């Protein structure tokens, strides 16, 4: 019953969120603030994670593919496809669920317990739409850029491992990443990331919006936001993969 209650309230919350903004100029200002806060500020961590994981995947591929019958360029080809198909969308979204999810839930939760949301409501402002809609649209707008950055940096990380760790020759690596490239993999990855971005922000905002109590409850809501976002990202990864790749 509890699950049905939360699903129903989540849907009702989304209906309120997707209502017409009170004032467009303020809304646009909020949107760009959120692009900076949720999107641009996540670029550093995405570059860092992608660089190291790209390098690690290349080393692991080389370690696993030991047959002399398999050419070396297969290592970079599989690294590239791993980055495109799963890492740069799903794993990056899991990282962002931690960073963005906790940020959104704690910000909105703190506003709730400090009566700032009540203050908005009393002014006659639809607080859920005012606070959450710019976050959703900003993050959904920016996540494709993060995914594309992650793809390039991850593949670049793999190349660096070939240069500095002598895993395979850089020439083989370059040859492999150009071989049998399927552009749809990028499209598939971006479609998935758009859904994940929506889930992360809406689930986290929901957790923050309905928090009651004090600082302890805001912390709990933040944890729940991250956990539920991760679970939903993994579930929808499976569903979307089945829908888009089979």
């Amino acid at each position, binding site marked *: 019953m509890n699950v049905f209650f939360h699903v129903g309230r989540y849907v009702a919350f989304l209906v309120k969120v997707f209502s017409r903004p009170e004032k467009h100029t303020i809304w646009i200002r909020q949107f760009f603030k959120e692009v900076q806060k949720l999107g641009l500020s996540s670029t550093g961590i995405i570059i860092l994670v992608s660089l190291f994981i790209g390098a690690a995947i290349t080393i692991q591929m080389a370690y696993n593919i030991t047959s002399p019958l398999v050419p070396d360029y297969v290592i970079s080809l599989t690294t590239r496809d791993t980055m495109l198909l799963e890492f740069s969308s799903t794993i990056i979204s899991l990282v962002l669920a931690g960073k963005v999810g906790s940020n959104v839930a704690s910000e909105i939760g703190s506003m709730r317990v400090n*009566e700032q949301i009540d203050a908005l409501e009393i002014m006659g402002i639809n607080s859920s739409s005012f606070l959450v809609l710019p976050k959703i649209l900003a993050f959904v707008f920016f996540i494709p850029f993060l995914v594309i950055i992650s793809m390039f940096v991850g593949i670049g990380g793999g190349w660096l491992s070939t240069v500095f760790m002598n895993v395979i020759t850089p020439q083989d690596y370059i040859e492999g990443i150009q071989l049998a490239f399927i552009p749809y993999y990028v499209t598939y990855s971006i479609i998935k990331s758009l859904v994940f971005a929506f889930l992360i922000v809406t689930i986290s905002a929901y957790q923050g919006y309905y928090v009651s109590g004090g600082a302890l409850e805001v912390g709990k809501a933040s944890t729940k936001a991250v956990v539920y976002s991760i679970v939903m990202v993994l579930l929808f990864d499976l569903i979307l993969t089945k829908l888009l790749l089979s």
Partner: protein
Amino acid sequence: MIEVRQVNKIFNDRPVLIDVCATFESGKVNMVIGKSGSGKTVLLKSLVGLHSIDTGQIFFDGRDFHTLKQKERIEIRKEVGMLFQGGALFDSSTIEENVMFPLDMFTNDTQQEKLKRVNFCLERVNLHGINDLYPSELSGGMQKRAAIARAIALNPKYLFCDEPNSGLDPQTAIVIDNLIKEITYDFGITTVVNTHDLNSVLSVSDTIVFIYEGRSWWNGTKERMLTTDNQELNEFLFSSEIMRRIKT
């Protein structure tokens, strides 16, 4: 003027407001007093529409708030200013941005006009040179004053204050009380203040409603309050030894 007629509110099968009746007059400081948990905050939040009521009526100058359409309610809410217990200033905005916020949302004034109004409101609450500071950089009393400045930015017809003195030292509490009183008289606002601070009640109240176990138990003026023979009100007012000594 705000009229409350037989308002009832139940939370989880527990009646919190029972047939509450009260009249809050324009241009006066109307105080709602009562013990913690008596239903004062629920009444205040019901007045401003943060809680829906189960039965009864609340009239804002003849307009029955809870039967109005959403759009009409929003119009009334634009006439309402509220001072929350903790100030409820937006942490991520400066004081200037906080006070300007309602003007940004509901007026088409130029930036210069809005800034002029912001400075007027901040001057009115005796805050100078703090436009670019963030709420966390201010003391509790200054935060309350900044919150009052935001509440009066749109020239409200109704001002609601929930425990405006909580967490403040006695001197700062007097400053806030006097400010609420001055603003009420200057602008002819209908002000409703929730408090259990007897100093405030005795120094600035014009009318008083005593809430006891969810009911509007007594109403009158501070002069009548001190001589009433209402047992529950007397127990509330003279619960401390020092107050009993003052009475005798």
